[in-house]
Structure formats: C-alpha cells, structure tokens
C-alpha cells in the first residue's frame, strides 16, 4: 500500500495542498513503521520507531509480569483469565484453519477467519488491558497512571489520523475501506504509544545521564582495563595469536593466482584476522566481567561507593573499547608493516623483473609484468572515484537503459555491439536518474504530459577544484569561459527584452562589466601562454647547447603552468562472437565532451579485460564545464561486444594514502567490537556468565552469518517455509519448491511456522548487521572508504549500542546486585 501513498504524498505537497493535509501525511510518515523518508534522517526516524515499538512491548510485558507476580488479575476476575486462555488457543486454531484453507483441505469464507482472529486478538487485548490497569492502579505511581492514559490517547490519535487520511484519499478517488483504515490506524497508534513509553523511559534515564561524571567513568573504565589484562590476559593472548598466525600465513595462503591479486588477498586476510580476533576477544571478555564481579562479590566495593549504575555500564564499555582501540592500533601497525613487506616487496620484484625482461628483449613479457606491477600499485592506494550515471544507445542509436544481454549467468554488465552506433554514455554533472530520464523520454515520445513535479537530480558533478590547479592555464581558461558564458546568456536576455520592447539598460551595464572582466582574464591567459612558450623556447635552446638537465628543468617549469591531465579508469569485459584475428585485442573508443563548450577529446585504446584500463583527458576540456561532462564509449572491433556497468568507468579524483584507508577499514572492526561490547555488558547485567557468554556468542554468529537470512525472513523471501516445514522437507528429502502433501505433520508444521515466523522475523531489528561494517572489499580493491560511509557506520553502531547499554542499565538499576 505504501507504494500508492508515496507518490500521493509527493503530489499533495507539490500541488500546494492545505497545511493540514501535509501535517496529516507527516503524521503517517511518523506513525507507520513501514514508511520513512530518504537519507540519514529517514534512517534515524525508522530507528526511533523501532526503539519505540520495542519500548512499548517491554512496558506492557513488565506490567503484565508484575500483575502476574502479584496474582492481581487471577484473584479478581477469574473468567477473564479463562477467556484469555481460550483466546490464545483460538488464535492457534485460527492459524490452523488458515493453513488448512491454504492447502485446500477445507473451504471457508475468508471473513470467518478474519472474525475469529480479530475476536481472539481482542480478548487477549482486553486481558492485557485489565492486567495493566489492575497493576498500575495498585502498584503504579501517578506518573505511570499518566503514561497509561497517554498511551490510550495515542492509540486513539492513530485511529483518528488514519480515518482522516481516508477522507483525504477519498478526495483524490482512492478508497481505502474502513477495515483497512482502522487496521492502519492501530498500527500508527501502536507507534504513537511507543513514543509515549519511550518518553517515559527517557525521563527515567535522563537524570542518570545528566549525573554522569567523567572522573567516575574513567575510574570504572580503568578498572575494567586492569581487570581484563590481569585476570584474563586477554590483550596478550590476542596479540600473541595474531603474531603467530601472521608468522605462518604462508602455510594457509598459497601464492595468489595472479600477482595483481597479491595485495587484495593479503588485505582481505589480514582484515579478517583482525576482525575475528577482536570480536572473539570481546565475545569472551565482556559478558564475563559483570557476572563474575557479582559472583565474587567484588561489586560490593563499587556499588557501595557513589557510583551510578549507568556509569557502571558505560564505564565498562569505555574500558573495553579502550582495550580494543589499543589492539586495533597494534594490529593495524603490524598489518601495515607486513603488507608493505609482502606486497611492497612483490611490487618491487615485479618491476625489477620487468626491467630485466626489457633488457633481454622479451618485450611482451616486460609489458605484462609492468602492467601487473601497476595493477598492484593501483590496489595499494585509496582511490576516490567520481562516478557518472550510465545510459546506453543500442545498435540503431536508440536510447536504452541497458545494453545487450549476451547470456551470462550473472547479468551484472550489459553489452554494446562493436562497429555500430551502440554506445555506453556516462553523464557527469547534475543529472536525472537514468530510469527517470528514460521513462520521461518514453512518455514524451508517446505525447503524454510531463510529470507534475520536476524529477529529482543526482549530483554527479566533477569537483573542478581538484583538477584545475589555481594559477594554471586551464584554471584561467575555466574562469574566462564561465564569464563568456554569462555574457552570452545576458546578451540573449537583452535581445529578448528589447524584442519585447522592455527596458534592458540595467543589463547592458552588467554586460559591460562582465565583458571587461572577460578581457582581463583573456589578457592573463595570453600572458600565461606566452610565458609558457618563452620557457619552452629557452628549454629548446638549452637542449641544443647540450645541457639536457637544464632543459628538462625548464620543461618541468613549463609543465607546471598546465593542470595535470584528468585520469579516467575503467574495467570492461569483452564478449567475442568470433575469435577475430588471434592475438588482437578488442578496441574501444572514448569520447569526452564538455556539454557547455562542445569541446571533445577522443581517444582509442585496446581493452584489457579484467584489468583497470587507464586513459586521460586534457584538463582544458573541463574549462567552463561547471563540473558537467559526457563520456561516450563505443566498441570499435566489429562483431565483438564490450560489457560494462555504471561503476566500471569513473574519473579518478584523488588517490589517498593506503595506510589511512586501511585504518579506516579497521575502524569498521572497532565498531563491530563496540556493538558486541554493549551486547556483552547488557547480557551480563541479568544473566549468569555461561548464559551471558552464549547469548553474546549467538548475537555475534547471527550478525556475522545469519543477517541476510533474517532479512529474507523479514521480507518473506524464504522459499520452503519456516523452521518446522523446512525440517520436514529436510528429513523427507524434499527440495524447497516442491508442494508438500497436506498430511497431519505438514499441517502442524505449517501452523507452528505461522506462529513462530512473525516473532522470528522481528529478530532482524535486534541482530546487528555486521557485514555493513566490513570495508575489506573496498580497501582491498584500492578504493577509499569515504567519511560518509564511516559516519553511516558510526551512526548505525550507536543505533545498536545505545539501546543495548541503556536496557542493561535499566535492568541493573532494578536489580539487587549486592543481595
């Protein structure tokens, strides 16, 4: 349903609808857990909603538990307890009927199931309501009572919002239906209820947060560090294991398949090693610390001091993280030294070998070796690419979203045919999403009206300041070109106005000013150019006189008056329909065009498959481009095809330091460790150490290996049913897609699955997704981990750490640790 609402939302806003309608739609965005806005704020909003819903669950569970412990509802209204018990059984029965219906064993009107299910749910809701009321009226404070009231108001608000939205939709002829509207309303209401509870939780936590003192945090943290080192020897053990494994890496790693892969293999292995060692250390260390303190009664000495419980939790986390930080630094240092010895050594060896091959007239081999060394060097950097947006022309020059599918199993790349107008076009600048552009064109060709709102633009501009060095000829050319463009625009405007009989004297003045500026720039440009030719003629003179070093110096000086060429890197695949002339490469042409000036720079090159092909375009081409550029790639060799995807070609903005990038990658490991620390400490607040250890271990394993599975589970993408049905398939040797005969066992399994799956699929909100903190692929491919990526990682890690540590604190606060 959300897919219907989103465009509506966009339209309503754009069409200048009433502020009230906009507010209503915002209420929906805030209330519906399935809808959010784009960007980091959207992520934050979703996070708050999930935390709020879990708070609500916790709040209800806590009051029902207290009611049960105090035998409140049991003593008062016995019949309600029985009714609730029957309702739960009825719910299971409904699920069973549902399964029977879906396997066509029975035939019921769907409404019967809906009514049965709703009735059961209502009875359970009433039972909960009763328990919570009874408990709060007996044991609750005034604040709890207020929360209870506010929760009900929130639910009402949700339903009201949904009904009003329904009325709004009716105005644009969308009929949602009352039942659906109320169901949606309950969903919004639940989120609003969650917000109320979250607010209550915050009021509980806030005083403690405000009362935190760095001195006490530091003391606890230091205590944790000392304990981990003294009692468990953790850091020593981990460093020792790291060094031992490092010393024997060659036992497990065979010589990489290609020298070009040398770096990648080692980088991936080392990051994996660091990540495994640190996370395993944290998994073992953190859940043990609190329970053993409580068991050994050493906690007495701490809790009897004026230390807040939150400081106890956060101090511990900080202490462990200090240890992790130290270890990350040590591992990083050793890894970098190891990499520079292994990979750096290999690069030097390959380059020496290339020189030797060249000296021995083995030119082909020398070329291959040099390319390999270059590939290795490329990967041992931190490239920052500027990517364009890719569209295609087919063999008849018609615009396409994709090229030809040559029938490869994984269709990552699509192909263009050689020696035809087929082309792959990368556009840089502020461009439309290729899909939007394509469908806009299709609509235009069919004579349909353009969309009501302007479509969003992607910012794919080339950072000119990186390529046009201040003070060079190209930078000056850029300034000049910009001013000239302004002048010609203003002239056009002037003509338009004078044609319309309007006054344009004001424009004339600014045109005059700009023209003067242009003349000034032109003068400066000429000056630079004459300076260059002067230096070059001097260099020629020196060369003639036989002073070649002086000549080379002068030429360098002249070169400095130019901005360096703009590097373009690409990786294409080749698909041959015939062998062609054996040994001949497939050729590609690349044409870079500045859309403002129309200047072009064509080049042709042989494609080296699976290698990074490097070409350059003159920096002068970017002058006056405003960061816009079009790069068109064609396959020249006839009957052959060239395959590409959007990321295959980029303008190389900068190559950063590999060491820094590697440490950024380890920061990802650090963040994983932070989440695990929070989970470990949280588990330690209420579980005995073996259970806490297992819990942390389970979180670690699930986050590492099972997150994708959980995601599939949550989005209902699991083929072959839930755990029970899968078990039956497993023992009966049935594959995942075969229809199971509806025997008693199968129906029972499906019923159990339908009860278990909704709960299991919620795990996706709790289990941390560790793979997003794994930057090893980016690093090993020689690309920079951007600050944005790092920020996303930090936010996400905090999104897990904060709730876990705060729940831990709340539990610890209400627990008699020194009993």
């Amino acid at each position, binding site marked *: 349903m959300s897919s219907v609402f989103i465009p509506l939302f966009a339209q309503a806003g754009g069409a200048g609808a009433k502020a009230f309608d906009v507010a209503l739609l915002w209420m929906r965005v805030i209330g519906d857990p399935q809808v959010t806005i784009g960007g980091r704020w959207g992520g934050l909003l979703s996070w708050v909603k999930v935390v709020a819903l879990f708070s609500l669950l916790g709040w209800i569970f806590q009051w029902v538990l207290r009611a049960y412990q105090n035998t409140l509802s049991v003593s008062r209204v016995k019949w309600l307890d029985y009714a609730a018990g029957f309702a739960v059984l009825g719910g299971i029965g409904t699920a069973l009927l549902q399964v029977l219906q879906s396997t066509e064993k029975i035939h019921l009107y769907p409404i019967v199931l809906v009514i049965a299910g709703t009735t059961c749910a209502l009875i359970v809701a009433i039972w909960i309501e009763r328990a919570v009321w009874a408990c709060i009226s007996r044991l609750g404070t005034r604040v709890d009572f207020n929360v209870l009231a506010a929760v009900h108001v929130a639910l009402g608000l949700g339903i009201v919002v949904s009904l009003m939205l329904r009325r709004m939709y009716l105005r644009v002829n969308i009929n949602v239906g009352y039942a659906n509207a109320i169901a949606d309303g309950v969903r919004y209401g639940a989120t609003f209820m969650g917000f109320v509870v979250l607010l209550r939780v915050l009021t509980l936590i806030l005083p403690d947060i405000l009362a935190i003192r760095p001195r006490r945090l530091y003391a606890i943290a230091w205590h944790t560090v000392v304990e981990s080192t003294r009692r468990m020897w953790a850091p020593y053990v981990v460093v020792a294991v790291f060094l031992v494994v490092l010393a024997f890496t060659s036992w497990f790693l065979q010589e990489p398949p290609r020298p070009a*892969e040398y770096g990648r293999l080692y980088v991936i292995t080392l990051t994996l090693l660091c990540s495994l060692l640190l996370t395993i250390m944290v998994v073992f260390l953190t859940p043990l610390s609190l329970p053993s303190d409580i068991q050994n009664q050493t906690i007495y000495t701490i809790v009897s001091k004026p230390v807040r419980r939150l400081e106890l939790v956060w101090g511990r986390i900080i202490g462990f993280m200090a240890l992790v930080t130290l270890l990350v630094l040590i591992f990083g240092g050793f890894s970098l030294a190891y990499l520079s010895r292994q990979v750096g050594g290999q690069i030097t060896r390959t380059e020496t070998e290339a020189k030797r091959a060249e000296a021995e007239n083995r030119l*082909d081999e020398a070329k291959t070796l040099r390319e390999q060394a270059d590939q290795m060097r490329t990967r041992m950097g931190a490239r920052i690419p500027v990517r364009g947006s890719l569209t295609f022309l087919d063999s008849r020059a018609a615009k396409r979203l994709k090229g030809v599918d040559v029938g490869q199993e*994984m269709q990552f790349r699509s192909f263009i045919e050689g020696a035809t107008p087929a082309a792959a076009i990368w556009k840089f600048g502020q461009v439309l999403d290729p899909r939007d552009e394509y469908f806009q064109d299709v609509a235009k060709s069919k004579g349909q009206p353009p969309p009501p709102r302007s479509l969003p633009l992607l910012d794919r501009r080339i950072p000119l300041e990186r390529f046009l060095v201040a003070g060079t000829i190209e930078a000056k050319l850029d300034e000049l070109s910009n001013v000239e463009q302004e002048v010609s625009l203003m002239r056009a405007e002037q003509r338009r106005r004078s044609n319309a009989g309007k006054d344009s004297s004001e424009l004339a003045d600014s045109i005059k000013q700009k023209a003067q500026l242009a003349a000034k720039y032109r003068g400066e440009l000429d000056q630079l150019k004459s300076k260059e030719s002067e230096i070059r003629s001097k260099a020629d003179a020196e060369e003639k006189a036989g002073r070649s070093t002086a000549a080379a110096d002068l030429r360098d000086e002249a070169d400095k008056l130019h901005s360096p060429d703009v590097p373009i890197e690409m990786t294409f695949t080749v698909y041959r329909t015939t062998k062609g002339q*054996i*040994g001949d490469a497939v050729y590609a042409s690349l044409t870079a065009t500045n859309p403002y000036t129309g200047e072009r720079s064509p080049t042709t090159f042989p494609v080296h498959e699976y290698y990074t092909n490097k070409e350059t375009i003159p920096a002068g081409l970017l002058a006056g481009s405003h960061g816009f550029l079009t790069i068109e790639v064609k396959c020249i060799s006839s009957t052959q095809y060239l395959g590409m995807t959007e990321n295959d070609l980029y303008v190389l903005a900068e190559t950063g330091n590999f060491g820094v990038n590697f440490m950024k990658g380890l920061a990802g490991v650090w963040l994983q460790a932070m989440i695990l620390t929070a989970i470990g400490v949280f588990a330690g607040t209420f579980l005995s150490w073996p259970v806490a250890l297992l819990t942390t271990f389970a979180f670690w394993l699930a986050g590492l290996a099972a997150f994708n599975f959980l995601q599939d589970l949550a989005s209902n993408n699991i083929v072959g049913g839930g755990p029970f049905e899968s078990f039956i398939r497993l023992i009966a040797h049935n594959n995942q897609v075969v229809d199971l005969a509806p025997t008693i066992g199968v129906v029972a399994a499906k019923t159990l699955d339908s009860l278990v799956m909704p709960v299991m699929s919620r795990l996706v909100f709790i289990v941390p997704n560790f793979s997003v903190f794994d930057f090893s692929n980016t690093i090993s491919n020689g690309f920079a981990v951007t600050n944005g990526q790092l920020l996303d990682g930090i936010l996400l890690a905090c999104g897990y750490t904060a709730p876990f540590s705060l729940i831990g604190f709340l539990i610890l606060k209400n627990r008699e640790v020194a009993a």
Partner: protein
Amino acid sequence: MRFSASLTRKLIYSMGILLLFGIMVPYTQWLEVRQKEQELGEATIGQVDAGSFLLKLALLGGFRGMAVNILWTRAIDLQKVHDWDRMKTTIDMITKLQPHFLAVWTYQSWNLAYNVSVEWDAPEDKYDWIKKGIQFVQEGVKKNRRSPDLVWDTAWYYHHKLGFSDEAVIIRRLYHDDKDDEFKSNEEGIVRNDNFQLAHDWFKRAVDLVDSGEAGARPATSMETPIEYVDAPVQHKGRPGDLHFRTMPAHSYTRYAAALEKESMKGIPATFGARARDAWDNALSAWLDFGLYEFPCHNNDKEKVRIDDYDNPDRYKTLSKNQQYWIGRWGDQTQYMYWKDRCKAEREPQGVEARRLFYEGTKAIKAANFPEAAQKYKQGLDIWDKLLARHPTYEGDFLNKRDTGLIVKRYVRALKNAGLEVPEKMPFKDLLKVVEKDNTVDPYDALEMMPASSESAPQAPPGSPGG
C-alpha cells in the same frame, strides 16, 4: 629461598608439559615405524603440507566435509560473478582440506585451465590461467605420487590445452619464453622448451607409473588386513585395456616433430636438419614402444597381442584368429599403421628436405616472391612424390592427401601469380580435386594464421629454436 605456592604450581605444570613432550618422542618414533609398515603415512602418499595438516586438525576431522561443501559452493558462486582470483584461493583451500581426493584436483585444474582461461581475452592472461591450472594439478601430483590419473591430467594440459587452443601459436610462444624453469622441467629436472616434449615426458611418466605396479592403492597381501583409506585414491587411467593411454607419449612426440617443421610458435622460425630427424626418430620409437606392448585380449586375458604384429606378416600368420581380430580392431582404432608409416617417411632425409622446401615456399608466397615459391614447391613436391612412393600407407591416408593437396594448390597459385603456366603433368595433381573447396589455414602455423606483420614481432634470441 622459599617458593611461593603459585610458583611451585607453575613449576610442576611446566615439568608435566616437558614430561609429556618427552614421552611423545619415542611414541612418535614407534608410530612412524607402524605408518611405514602399513604405508599409511601422508609422506608415502605424497608431499606433506603443514598448513593442510593444521587445517584438518582445526576442523577436528568431522567438520571437514561441511567446510568443504561451503567452500565448494562459494567457489561456484565466485565463478559465476567472475571473481576468478578469489575462486582460485577458495579451491586452494578445498585441496588443503582434502588433499587426497583426486576428483577435486582433476575437476578444478580443468576448470582453471579450460573454463577460466577462456574467459580472459588477452592470450597472455589465458596462458597465465592455463599455467595456474597445470600448477594446480601438479600440486595434486606432489601430494598423490601414486596416482597415474593426475600425472596423465598434467600431461594432457601441456599437450592439449597449450598445444591445441585457438591461440596455440601465441600460447606456445609464451610457454617457450617462460622463465619459470620448474614449470617447464620434467621429473628428471630437464627443462623442455616445447610443451609437446614436456607433455611426452609426463605421459611417459604416467605409463611408467602404471607399469611399475606402484599406481593406486597398493592391494593388501593375504598376510595383512586391508587398509581402509579415508579418501581412497581411485585409479581411472592406465587400466589394462586403455589403449589411448599408451598412445599419448607417441602422439606428443609426433606433434612435437610436426610442430618443429613449421612456425608453430609465433616469431620462431621452423627447424629442419638433424634436429627434425631426431624428433621424428623419437616419435617412431615411441610408436614402436606402443606397438610392441602386449595387451591382453578383451575376451581372453590369457591371449596377449602386440599391435605391431599387424605390420609383421611372419608373426601375424602364427597368431590365433582371436588375436588377429583384436590386432586388426585395435590397430584401426589407434590408426597405428598410419602413424608408424608417417614417422618412418618423415624421418628420412628426403622427408625433412621436402618439408623445408614447402616451408620456404610458403614463406616466399607470404613475401609475394611467387617465382621462388613455385620453384621451392616444385622441388619439394618432386622429392615428396618419390618418398611417398615408398610409404604407401602414409600416401593413401586422407589426412596426408589433404595436406599434400593444399601444398599443390598453393603451388598452382604461386605459378599463376608468377605468370607461369601450370604444367600438364605434375605430382599429386589429382589431389587438387580433394582440396578444391578447402580454404582452411593450418591453425598451428603462425605463418598461415598471423597477418604478415607477425614477421616484425620480436624475434627469439639467436640459437634458441623450438627444441
């Protein structure tokens, strides 16, 4: 000096550790003797690999199968997304876990040498991946010394994948120029600069391994309990009736000799004279080795036949009907008579001389020197005519007819281009009909395959022809 309790404890523990290590020494020695007796040791099966041993230990044996399954699936996925390098690393891990499971070596080495290499566009990269495949299976040979299968696979890649691919003329040159002597040397450490020579050595090694009776798992004698291997090495190649297994050394040598007499490596001129004659001699003796081997008849193990007896009327007469049947059948199947007669013909000085003249004729055609080409072809064909008259089996073979026909066709072309008349009578004129519509070029001859510019390609250093 008084020791504290904890220090005393530590001392006791360390002494215990030392003691245990002490006991381990005689125990290990005893174990090694037992291993040798039973031929159970890793070292008897093949080279010991510390990493492999540790990995197996870490997985406690039982998890090995699971780990291998995961790795295998991962390798297939990586191959699908064309991440070749990580795929190679993954299959390396599989072999660390299952070093004595031969199918892994065979399957994945083929995968690398054939399936992965074909995905790369540049011949240098193709060669690189073929080499990886060969080195991979050689690693398998090191760890399973008694398997003729893996030895034979190695030979096959040297022979077929390097020698018969579409880019063979380039790839063979890359092999020739390869500085990796280990990759190019045979078991005795002799470096071979032609892949066919090396293929012969490996094929021969497989045959010798079978003949030595060392191949496969040694059958238990009646005195000892049979050994149950965990990954029992299964022998597929070199079973008693495996004819083609035994022809391959001869095939490789024949290929080598034929390749010597053309520009079969891009930029390296053909070789004739004594070296070519030697090569054909070697090929002939390899064929005789095959022909004189005694195969048991399929329907009667007791009756043995030598395929060469087909060529020996005196002996042939003395054989039973059944033996004659099998000799005839297997001789036809392996084209033994053709190969033998061909080697005999080509090894003669006239044979080599005729080939030299054909080669020079073709070179002259490429250089558009048609009168010279016509002259060379004429001389060559005259010699060839006289030679083949003595070798009727070779002469009558279709392949030869086609080859010779193509030369005659070229001769006629040279004559026409030189403005000369095509003589009424010339040797093999009737073969022109056979090749009338045949415009194929020899894919293993750079002179025919590559454009004329290949002459400008970097020449091999002097004194290093194909041999």
